[in-house]
C-alpha cells in the first residue's frame, strides 16, 4: 500500500494550491486554486494530469477546499463547471459562505476592469456552490464507506481548516494555510495528536521567525494615528474579505481606547454585506471575540460609515477601506489618484503585491512618479506604510506542528524553493522525518501503514488487564553511584505494574486469525497440556 501525491500547484511556489493524493485507492484533490500572477494557461493547475481522458468524476473521490482565498479556491468554479467535475466538494461553513463572494469579486475585476475573457460566469459560481457540502470543525464526515475526512481549526482566515483524511489504515493531514499564534480576531490552529503517514504542510515562512505580532500592529496603528491627527487621509486598499475585517477590528478597538472621532469609511464594493457574513460566523473567530458576542458583536463596527464619491475631496481627516487590494484598478485607484499628491496622506499596503499593480510599484521603488496609463502620471508624495503582519505560521510554528504530529513523512508545499530546501533539511536532521518538496506536476510516493486484522478472545483481553505489580526495594547499594539529587528522586520502594499476558495467534484455514490466551490454545487444538 502506498500514498501517491501529485502536486499540481503550489509546488515550490506560492499560488494555485492544488494537490491530488491517491491514498489506498481513493483520490482526493486538496484545494483548487488559481495563480494571480499569470494570465495564461499557467493560471490554473494542469488538470489533464489527473485524468488524460478528462473523466474527472471517476478519477476523483472528492475535492477538499481549506479556505476562501483565491489561490486555494480560484479554479474551483472552472474545474466543476467548465471541466465537468460533479462529485462532492467539501469546505467549512464560512468558506462556503465567503468563497462565492471572492470568486465573484475576482470575476468582476477580470472582466470589467482588465477586459479579459472570462473563464467562468456568475452562474458557474452559483452552480458550483451547489455541489459544496459544508462541514463543521471536528465533524467526522464519511465520504464513502472507506473514506473519512475531518476539519481542524487552522486560524489563517475565518473558516480556514486543516483536513484529516483516513482511508483504511492510512491517515494523513493537509494543512492548507495556517497560523500557530492567535491573532486579534482568530484563534491559533488546533489539531489532535494523530498517527499520520503523511503531513502536507504549507511553508510560506519556511525560514522566518517572526516576533510578536502585537508590535507590528502597534506600528500600523501609530502610523495611522499620526496621519489622521495631522489632518491627513488614510487609504487602505484591501479585498472585500479577511484583511479588511481584521484591520477594522484593530482600528475599532484603537478608536475606542483613544477616543478618536475621525470617521472610518468602507467603499461601496466592500462592505456591510461582507460584515454581515462575519457577524453570523462569529463562532469561528477567537475565543475573546466569541465571548463578547451577546453584548456587542465585534463585527458590528460602530465607527464605520459608508463612503460616498462626493467625499473624495472633502476636507478633514478620515480612514478609507477601498477595493480592490494592491490598487490594481477600480475605486482604490481612483482614490489613490486624488490622495497621493498630498504628503499629509498615507497609503497602507500589504507585504505582498502582485507585479504590475500600482501597489507593487509603490513598495518596490522609491520613484515618486507613477504612470497609471500612458496619459496619466501621478506625483506620489504621500507616505507609504507596509503592513508587516501576515496570518501565516512562521518556521517555528511549522516545526512545532511537525513535531507535535510526528508523521512518518512530510511534504512541503506553498513556499519558495530555497527556503523550503532549508526547512526540509531541518525536518530531516532535527526530527528525523523524511521530507519532500516536489515541484509542480511532480509525484511523490510513500508507503502507508497497514494493519493485519485479527480477533482477540475475551479471556486474552481480560488477562492483559490483570494487574501485575512488582515491588522493588531500592537500597543504598544500588544508588551509591548516583548523585545526591538522584537519590532524592528515587523512592525507596518502586512499584511497577507491567501487565503481561501470554497470547497465541492461531490461524486456521478459512478462518480469521484469532488471538487467544495460552490456556485456550489447547481447547482450540483439542490437545492436552504437557508439563515438564
Amino acid at each position, binding site marked *: 500500500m502506498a500514498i501517491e501525491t501529485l502536486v499540481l500547484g503550489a509546488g515550490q511556489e506560492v499560488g494555485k494550491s492544488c494537490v491530488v493524493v491517491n491514498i489506498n485507492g481513493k483520490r482526493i484533490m486538496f484545494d483548487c486554486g488559481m495563480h494571480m500572477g499569470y494570465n495564461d494557461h499557467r493560471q490554473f493547475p494542469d488538470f489533464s494530469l489527473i485524468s488524460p481522458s478528462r473523466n474527472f468524476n471517476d478519477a476523483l473521490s472528492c475535492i477538499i477546499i481549506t479556505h476562501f482565498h483565491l489561490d486555494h479556491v480560484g479554479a474551483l468554479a472552472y474545474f466543476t463547471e467548465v471541466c465537468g467535475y460533479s462529485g462532492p466538494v467539501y469546505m467549512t*461553513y464560512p468558506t*462556503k*459562505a465567503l468563497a*462565492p463572494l471572492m470568486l465573484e469579486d475576482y470575476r468582476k475585476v477580470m472582466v470589467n476592469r482588465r477586459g479579459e475573457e472570462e473563464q467562468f460566469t456568475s452562474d458557474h459560481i452559483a452552480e458550483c*456552490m451547489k455541489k459544496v457540502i*459544508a462541514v*463543521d*470543525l*471536528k*465533524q*467526522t*464526515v*464519511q465520504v464513502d464507506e472507506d473514506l473519512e475526512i475531518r476539519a481542524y481549526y487552522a486560524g489563517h482566515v475565518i473558516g480556514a481548516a486543516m483536513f484529516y483524511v483516513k482511508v483504511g*489504515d492510512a491517515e494523513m493531514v493537509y494543512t492548507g494555510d495556517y497560523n500557530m499564534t492567535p491573532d486579534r480576531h482568530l484563534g491559533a490552529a488546533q489539531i489532535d495528536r494523530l498517527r499520520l503517514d503523511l503531513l502536507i504542510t504549507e511553508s510560506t515562512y519556511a525560514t522566518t521567525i517572526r516576533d510578536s505580532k502585537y508590535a507590528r500592529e502597534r506600528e500600523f496603528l501609530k502610523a495611522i494615528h499620526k496621519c489622521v491627527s495631522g489632518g491627513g487621509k488614510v487609504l487602505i486598499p484591501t479585498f472585500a474579505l479577511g484583511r479588511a475585517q481584521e484591520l477594522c477590528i484593530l482600528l475599532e478597538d484603537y478608536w475606542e481606547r483613544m477616543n478618536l472621532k475621525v470617521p472610518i469609511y468602507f467603499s461601496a464594493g466592500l462592505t456591510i*454585506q461582507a460584515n*454581515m*457574513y462575519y*457577524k*453570523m*460566523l*462569529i*463562532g469561528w473567530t477567537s475565543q475573546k471575540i466569541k465571548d463578547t*458576542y*451577546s453584548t456587542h*458583536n465585534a463585527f458590528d463596527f460602530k465607527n464605520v460609515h459608508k463612503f460616498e464619491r462626493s467625499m473624495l475631496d472633502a476636507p478633514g481627516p478620515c480612514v478609507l477601506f477601498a477595493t480592490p487590494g494592491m490598487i490594481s484598478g477600480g475605486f482604490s485607484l481612483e482614490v489613490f489618484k486624488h490622495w497621493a499628491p498630498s504628503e499629509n496622506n498615507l497609503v497602507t499596503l500589504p507585504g505582498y503585491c502582485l507585479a504590475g499593480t500600482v501597489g507593487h510599484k509603490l513598495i518596490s521603488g522609491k520613484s515618486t512618479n507613477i504612470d497609471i496609463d500612458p496619459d496619466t502620471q501621478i506625483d506620489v508624495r504621500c507616505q507609504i506604510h507596509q503592513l508587516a503582519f501576515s496570518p501565516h505560521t512562521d518556521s517555528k510554528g511549522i516545526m512545532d506542528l511537525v513535531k507535535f504530529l510526528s508523521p512518518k513523512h512530510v511534504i512541503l508545499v506553498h513556499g519558495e524553493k530555497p527556503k523550503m530546501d532549508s526547512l526540509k533539511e531541518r525536518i530531516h536532521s532535527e526530527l528525523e522525518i523524511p521530507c519532500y518538496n516536489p515541484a509542480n506536476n511532480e509525484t511523490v510516493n510513500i508507503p502507508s*501503514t497497514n*494493519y*493485519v*486484522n*485479527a*480477533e*482477540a*478472545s*475475551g*479471556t486474552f*483481553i481480560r488477562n*492483559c488487564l490483570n494487574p501485575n505489580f512488582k515491588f522493588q526495594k531500592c537500597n543504598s547499594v544500588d544508588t551509591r553511584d548516583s548523585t545526591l539529587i538522584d537519590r532524592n528522586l528515587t523512592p525507596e520502594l518502586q512499584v511497577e505494574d*507491567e501487565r*503481561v*499476558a*501470554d*497470547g*497465541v*495467534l*492461531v*490461524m*486456521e*484455514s478459512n478462518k480469521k486469525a*484469532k*488471538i487467544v490466551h*495460552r490456556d485456550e*490454545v*489447547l481447547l482450540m*487444538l483439542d*490437545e*492436552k*497440556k*504437557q*508439563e*515438564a
Partner: protein
Amino acid sequence: MKFTCLSKGRGFHFPPCHMLNCCGIRILLDCPLDLSALMAFSPVPTSLDAFSFEESNNNEKRQKIEDLLEAKSLIFAEPWYKTVNSLHLWNASLIDVILISSPMGIMGLPFLTRRKGFSAKIYVTLASARLGQLMMEDLVSMHAEFRQFYGLKESNFPPWLRQEELEILPSVLKEILAGKDGVELGAWMPMYSAADVKDCMLKINTLNYAQEVCYNGTLVIKAFSSGVEIGSCNWILNGPKGDIAYLSNSCFFSAHAMAFDYRSLRGTCALIYSDFSSLSDTQDIEDGDNYTDPTSDKLLPPSSFQDSDGFNLNSDEDLEEKEKLVFICSCAIECVKDGGSVLIPINRLGTILQLLEEMTTLLEASATEVPVYIISSVAEELLVWLNIIPEWLCKQRQERLFSGEFLFAHVKLLKEKKIHVVPDIHSHGFLKNWREPCIVFCPHWSLRMGPVVHLLRRWCGDPKSLLILEDMENLELALLPFKPVAMKVLQCLFPSGIGLQKVQPLLKTLQPKTVLFPEDLRLKTNFSCEKSFSVSYYTEAETLKVSRQKDSSEIKIAADLASQFYWKTFKKEGINVNRLKGKLLMENGRHHLFLDNDKKTSSGNSSLLRCGLLDSNKFLAKLSKMGINASMERGTDDAGSTNVRIVHTEKPYKALIEIGNTSTAITTVDANVASILYKAIDNILDEV
C-alpha cells in the same frame, strides 16, 4: 451490556433518563427535571391570595373532607423540584460518563455535579449546552421571585413533604408529590443556585455533531442531530465489542434545528429506542374552556410513508405543521383586532421562532399595529445567539447564511422595533412602552412562575383575550390558581418525536441486530413478524441484560510486527500457531498490537506451552541417540490411571521418567541430568 430505564419521562420538557453499563463503563443518559410537577405549587401569591395563604397556614387542623381541587389546596411554599427518582438510588460518584441528548436533558444536572465525589465526564453538544445553560439561568431567576416572597427558610425539610400533610392533599396533588405508588417523595430537591449552574457548565465537555471523542481509550462517542431542538442529538457508542445506538426523541421535520440524521445510526449491534412521544398519541386532547380548536385533535397524519429513505420526502406533515401555525396566528390576530391581548407561554424554541416570524408577517399583511413583546431574562442573549449558529440549523436556515441573509427574521424585526425584548415585567423600558392590546411571548409553560403569572392574572377575566398553551396533561390543574378563567384558551399539540407509523420503517432502515424497545409501546407496534432484528422490551426501573456481543473483539496488528511472526504449523489440523510478543494498546475503542522493542519484557519468562502426547518410542530413540540406555514399562500412577509409562535410564545417568497424559516428571539426583533429559523431551513435543 446492562440497561436500566430510570424514567420514561413525560413528553418534550421531561425526556427519558436511563443508565447503561457497557464495557464496564457506567453511562447516564440525560438528567432532566419534571417541571410539570411545579403545578402542585401555587404561583407567588398576590396580596389577595395572601389572605388564603395565611389562612391555610394558620388553620393547622385542616382536614381532608372531600377530594375537592381548589386554588386553596395548592401548596403555598417555595417550590422544590422533582428530579428522576430512581437516579437517587445510584451513587453519583460511580457514574463514569453522562450523555446529554437535548437542552431539556441538562436541567437536572447541577443537582448531580454539586454532589460530593462526582467525577463523571459529561458530553453535551455545544448548542445543547448553551441553550441548556440559558434555560437553567432563566429557571433560577424565575425562582428568585418565590425566594423573595417566602424568604429564606432555616429548616431544611419542607412541611409539605411530611406524611400527615400529604394525607390531606387532594389526590391529584398527592400523586404529583409522591408518585403513583407513593415512592417518589425522595425525588424532590430544593432549587440549585446560579453558582451551581456555573459550576456545572464548567464540568461539561462540548461536542459538535459527528465529532468523535474517546472515553478512556475504550469508548468512542459520537452525537448526531435528532431534529427535535437545536443541539439535540442521538448517540453512537463504539466500543471494542461492537456499537450501540441511542435513539432519543427525534423529529423528521424541523423548521429550525438540523434535521434528524438517521442515516448515521445505521447498522449497529444494538439500538436503544427511547422515543416515548408516541405514548401520548392516543390521549385525547382536551379543548380549551371556551374555545374549540379544530386542529388540536390528532395532528399526526396518516403517514404516507413510501420507501425506506423517503422519510423527509413526506411533506404532508411539514405542510400540516405550517397550517397549524397559521391557524394559531390568525386566532391571535383576530383576538387583538377584537381588542383582546394574546398570551403565549410556550417554551419550545422552534415553535416560538416560527410563531414570531409567522405572526409578524400576518400582522403586517392585515395592517394591524400591535406590539409584540418577548419577556424573559435570557431572551435577548438567546436571540442574538441564534443568529451565530448556522452549523446547528436546518438546511433552509443555512441557505440564508449562504445568500447573506440573517438566519432568523427576528434580527430585522428587532431593528425595526416590531418586537420588543425585555428581561422582566418590572423593567423600566417595558412599563414605559407598554401598550394593550398586545401579543406576549413569555415563560413559563407550567403557569406557576415567570412573567406569565402576572399577565395571566391581569387578563384571565377578560373574555376577549386569548391564552395559547402547549399540550397540557391536566389543563384544569394548570389554570386552577387563575380561576375563574373567562379568557379564551387554545391548546396545541406540537409533534416532538417519531410518529408511531414511522417506528417500524425507521428501524428497518437502521438495521440494528438487536432493538431495546419500551414495554409501554409494545402494544402499539408489532414486531412479531420482524426477522431482520431481534427485540427485547424494557420497563421503567428494571435492569435488562443484553448479551449482544460476541466474546471476542477486533484487534489490529502492526505490519512490522506481523512480518516477524514465526509460524508453527500443526499438520494434522491445518492450524498455524504463533506466539505473540508485542505491546497491546487500546486506542479509539480498538485494540492494537505494536512491535515492542523493550528488552525487559522480551527477555522475560519463557514458560512455553507444549502440547501433544509424548511419543514414547520417539523418546526412546532420541535417548539412545544421545547415548542413554533406557527401558520402558507401563505402569499405574497413584490415581490408578493406566496410561502412565515409566522410563528408567541406567547409563550413564540414573533417572526415572514418568510420562503421563498431561505431564511428564523427571526424577533424578543430578540437576544436570534433569536438564539434559528435559531438552530431549522438549525437542519432541510441539511447542507454542
